C-alpha cells in the first residue's frame, strides 16, 4: 500500500511534470520532422494532421538534388571547424598567459577583450565588409572565419581564463620541480586537464559559427553560402517553403547532435574526474 502510494507521488511529482516539460521541449523538433515528411496536400491543407497520412521524403530529395544543400553544409562545416580550431588554439594560449603570468597591461587587455564583445555585431558589419573587400577575401570562407574569431576568441579567452585560474599552480610547479620545462608542463600536465574545458568551449565556438547569420549573409556568395543563409533563402516575401525549410532544419541539427553525443562523454568524464586528487 505504501509502495503504491509512493509510486503515485513519484508519478505526479516527478514523471508527469518531467513528461510535460519534455513534451514542451521536444514537440517543436517533432513538428519540424513531421512537416518535412508531409506531402504538399497535407502540408497546406486545412486539416491539421499530427502524423502524415502518406509519409513522403520528397522534400529531402528536393533539398539535396534541386537545392544543392550539400554545398552550404560543406561550407558551414569548413567554416565552423576551422573557426573552432583557430579560436581554441589562440584563446588557449592567451588564456594561459593571462592566468599564469603577471605582465604590464594584462588587466587592460582583458578588459579590451570584454569590451569587444559589448559592441553589437551590426556595428562591425560595414568596417569588416570594407576590410574583407580590400583584402580580397570577401566571399571566401576565410572572411567568415576571420570575422567569427573576432568574437569567439575574446569570449573563449575569458571562459578558459576562468578554468585556468581554478587550476592550482602547484600542478605545473610540481612538474617543473621534477625537471619539466614550462612548455612540457603545459602540454603534459595542464593540457590534458584542460580538455573537458576545451571541449565545452569548442562546442560553444562551433555552435556559434554553425548558426551565425548576420556576417554570413554579407560575407558569402552563392559558392560560399553557409546553412543559415541558404535556409533563409526559403523564406520569401510572400510565403515560406515549409517543406524544404523543415527538411533543411532536420538535416542541420544532425551534425550538431552527433558532435554533442561524442563531446558529452568527454565533457562529463572530465568534469567529474576532478583536477587534483589526494
Amino acid at each position, binding site marked *: 500500500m505504501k509502495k503504491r502510494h509512493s509510486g503515485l507521488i513519484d508519478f505526479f511529482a516527478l514523471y508527469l511534470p518531467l513528461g510535460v516539460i519534455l513534451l514542451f521541449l521536444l514537440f517543436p523538433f517533432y513538428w519540424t520532422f513531421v512537416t518535412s515528411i508531409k506531402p504538399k496536400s497535407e502540408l*497546406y491543407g*486545412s486539416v491539421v494532421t499530427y502524423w502524415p497520412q502518406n509519409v513522403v521524403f520528397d522534400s529531402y530529395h528536393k533539398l539535396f538534388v*534541386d*537545392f544543392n544543400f550539400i554545398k552550404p553544409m560543406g561550407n558551414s562545416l569548413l567554416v565552423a571547424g576551422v573557426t573552432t580550431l*583557430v579560436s581554441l588554439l589562440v584563446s588557449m*594560449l592567451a588564456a594561459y598567459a593571462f592566468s599564469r603570468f603577471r605582465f604590464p597591461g594584462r588587466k587592460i587587455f582583458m578588459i579590451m577583450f570584454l569590451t569587444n564583445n559589448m559592441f553589437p555585431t551590426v556595428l562591425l*558589419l*560595414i*568596417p569588416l*565588409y*570594407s576590410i574583407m*573587400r*580590400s*583584402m*580580397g*577575401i*570577401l566571399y*571566401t570562407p*576565410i572572411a567568415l572565419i*576571420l570575422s567569427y574569431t573576432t568574437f569567439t576568441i575574446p569570449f573563449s579567452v575569458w571562459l578558459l581564463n576562468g578554468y585556468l585560474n581554478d587550476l592550482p599552480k602547484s600542478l605545473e610547479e610540481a612538474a617543473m620541480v621534477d625537471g619539466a*620545462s*614550462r*612548455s612540457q608542463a603545459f602540454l603534459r600536465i595542464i593540457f590534458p586537464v584542460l580538455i573537458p574545458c576545451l571541449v565545452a568551449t569548442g562546442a560553444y565556438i562551433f555552435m556559434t559559427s554553425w548558426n551565425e547569420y548576420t556576417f554570413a*549573409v*554579407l560575407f558569402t*556568395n*552563392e559558392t560560399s553560402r553557409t546553412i543559415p*543563409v541558404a535556409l*533563409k*533563402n*526559403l*523564406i*520569401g*516575401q*510572400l*510565403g515560406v*517553403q515549409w517543406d*524544404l525549410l523543415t527538411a533543411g532544419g532536420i538535416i542541420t541539427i544532425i551534425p550538431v547532435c552527433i558532435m554533442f553525443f561524442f563531446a558529452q562523454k568527454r565533457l562529463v568524464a572530465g568534469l567529474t574526474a576532478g583536477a587534483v586528487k589526494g
Partner: protein
Amino acid sequence: MSGCKKALTMILAFALSITTLAGCQSGSQSISSAAKSESPNQPIVLKHWFWPDSDMHTQVMQSMVDDFNATNGKNIKVELEIHPWDGGQYSQDLFTAAMGGGAPDTAGFKLTSTPLFTANHLLEPLDSYIDSWEDKDDIQDTLYKTLRSVTKDDNLYLMPWNTQILYVYYRPSMFQAAGIDIPKTYEEFLQDCRKLTRDTNGDGKTDVYGYGIRGSKGGQEPWGSFIYARGGSFDNLTSDASIQGMQDFIDLFQDGCAPPSAPNDGFNEIIANFQSGLTAMTIQHIGTSVNMVEKFGDDVGAFAFPDSPQGRWTSMGDTETVMFSSSKNKEAAFEWMSYLATGAGQKTWCVKTGNVPVSKTVQQMPEIQNNRFMKISIEGAPFAGILPVLDTTTDWINNTWPATIQAALLGKITAKEAMEQLDKALYSK
C-alpha cells in the same frame, strides 16, 4: 622553453603569412579580373542582387540571366548574387554592402528604401536613360509618377519591374445565395457586405460575414481603399472625406459584417477565414490566387475595388530595379534593367511567377490575359498607389495603424479621433 617559444613564433608567423598571402592572392585576382574586363574581347560583367521568394524564383531568374547573357549581343554578362529577403533585412544588407564599397551594378529593390539610399548618394538617377529609351511609353505614366514621388529631388531612381495590386476576392456561390452580383460602385460594395452577412443554419448566429477586415499589421493597404472611396487621401487624413471613409470601415465591423476577431486579424487570419468560408469577400493580391484556386476551383472570383464618384484607390505592392552610382558599366546596366522591365525577362518573370507585369505589351499577351486574377490586377493598375514614403512610415505601419484601428473598431475612440491620431503619427505634427 626556448624551443617552445620558437615553435609558437613559427606557428604565428605561418598563420599571419597565410592570411596575408591569401589577401594578396585574391587581391591580385580581382585586379587582374578588373583589368581583363577592360580589354575589348572580355565581357562587360554586371553584378545583380536578387532576393527569391521561393527556389522556383531562383531558377526562373537564373534562366533569365542565362537568356540575357546569350542574346544581348553587346557582350554583357550578368552575374546573379542571391540574398535572402529576411523580412526586409535584404535592403539593409544591400545598404551595408554599398556603404562598404561593394555595391552591385544593379539590384532588385523596394521603393520604401529609396530615401535611405539616395540620402547617401548610392543610386544613379535614371531620367536621362529613360528619356532616350525606346520602350519608355510601354510603361504607364502613373507608375513613373508613383515611383518618382518617393524622393523629394524629383529624380527617378527606380525602374519598374513588377507589381502586386490588391483586389477583392469573392465567393461566387455566396453571392448567388445572397442574390447579388459583383458590386459596380463603392456604395453597392458596402451594401453587399451587409447582404452577404448571413445566418445560414438558422441558429441565430452569423455563419458568413460579408467582408474579412484586416485590422492588424498590413491592414492599412485595404483600408486605404475605403478612405479614397469617400474622397479622402493619405495626404490629409483629417479631412471630412477621410473621416467618413474611416466611419464606413468602423461601421462594417460594428454592424457585424466582419468576424469578431477582425481587430486582431492579419494576413494569415483573413486568408484562413476566407478559405474556411467564414467570410465572403476579402482583399489581397495575386500572390494567394494559386492557393485560392486549389481550394475552391471555380468558386473563387476577383474584382477590382469598386469605383466611387469621390475617388478610387488600391494599394500597389512593388518590386523595382535600381542602378548604383558606383557602377562602372551604366549603359550595360540599363540594358539589363530594360530587359527585365519590358524585354523578354518581363514576360518570363511574370508568366512563370504570377507577378503583375508593368509592360503594357506584356500585359496584353494571351498568357496574362487568360489569367482572371492577372486581368483584374491589371485593371486596378491605373488607380493603384502607395503610402507616403516618410521617415515615420515604417513605425506608422507597424505600430500606430494597428493600435489606432483596433481602438476605433472596438469603439474606444471615434473615427475623427482615430484619423487625428493617424495623421499626427504619420506627419509627426
